């Protein structure tokens, strides 16, 4: 089950905590992975780690997702370095620029929408072209619990993540007949270098809201990505899979 041998995946934000975990898991299931981010040396390290396990199985294409031209070219570049058409797109890169509405600058709004939502549209558009021809594809957007529940100080981020969900549902309906599925994964609170910095009181306050009593791990999100990318999930489309320890039940 969940074998991805012979499949090619593009993972954006592969320099980050969740992106790297997702890339490792897809790779472990047999997929070729193309890693993207802006920090080339970090990408190269991960590619070397994965490449050592299986030759010609990990590639990198650096791209800045706030630049439309770079986003538009990313899928074609990924297919060129991997030498195969894209089967799986994981739109995982994302940023926050938090602030209460009265203090939110135009630029904070625009950058977050651009990197989180517009890049997803551009990548999905580019990926769909080849996937339609090949009659197979898996498009997965990493959204957030906040896109569904909201969170003060994150109007821009919540809008971008909710936008990803609506976008995915519409696209899922357009391409379902071509054997392409489009789904989102909505992580809750996942342990990261940022959460490591929280003090005891902050940590306790967060944990009090999570029935599972613990933060999630990158591997929890990666497992959801493997499932949605697999042949076994072919009948699942337009959905948002919430991975949050019960923090919100939707």
């Amino acid at each position, binding site marked *: 089950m969940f074998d991805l041998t012979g499949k090619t995946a593009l993972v954006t934000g592969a320099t980050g905590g969740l992106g790297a975990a997702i890339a490792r898991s897809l790779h472990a299931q047999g997929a070729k992975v193309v890693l993207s981010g802006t920090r080339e040396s970090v990408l190269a390290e991960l590619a070397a780690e994965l490449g050592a396990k299986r030759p010609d199985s990990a590639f990198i294409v650096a791209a800045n997702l706030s630049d439309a031209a770079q986003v538009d070219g990313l899928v074609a570049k990924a297919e060129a370095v991997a030498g195969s058409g894209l089967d799986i797109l994981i739109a995982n890169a994302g940023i926050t620029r938090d602030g209460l509405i009265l203090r939110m600058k135009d630029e904070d709004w625009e950058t977050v929408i651009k990197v989180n939502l517009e890049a997803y549209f551009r990548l999905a558009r580019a990926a769909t*072209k080849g996937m339609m021809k090949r009659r197979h594809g898996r498009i997965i957007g990493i959204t957030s619990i906040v896109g569904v529940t909201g969170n003060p100080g994150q109007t821009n981020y919540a809008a971008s993540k909710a936008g990803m969900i609506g976008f995915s549902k519409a696209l899922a309906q357009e*391409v379902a*007949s071509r054997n392409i599925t489009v789904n989102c994964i909505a992580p809750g609170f996942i342990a990261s270098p940022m959460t490591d910095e929280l003090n005891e009181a902050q940590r306790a306050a967060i944990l009090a809201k999570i029935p599972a009593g613990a933060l999630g791990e990158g591997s929890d999100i990666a497992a959801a990505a493997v499932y949605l990318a697999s042949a076994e999930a072919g009948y699942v489309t337009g959905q948002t899979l919430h991975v949050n320890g019960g923090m919100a039940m939707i």
Partner: protein
Amino acid sequence: MSEVLERVRKIVIDHLDADPDKVTEKASFIDDLEADSLDIVELVMAFEEEFDIEIPDDSAEHILTVGDAVSYIDGKLKS
């Protein structure tokens, strides 16, 4: 038969998996060849690639039959 017609027919037959006998100039993509709206978009993209032309959306809307495609592409190639 014109060369353009031959190339258009080939794309349509391949793409829609259509019976070659049915792919005449008069054949309507939707009514005779069972294409859906996504097929039409894909066909238009395939024509663009094959003939190295651009077909804007408002022109694509008027391409309903194989013959429509051929005359549109003929016009584009001559201009």
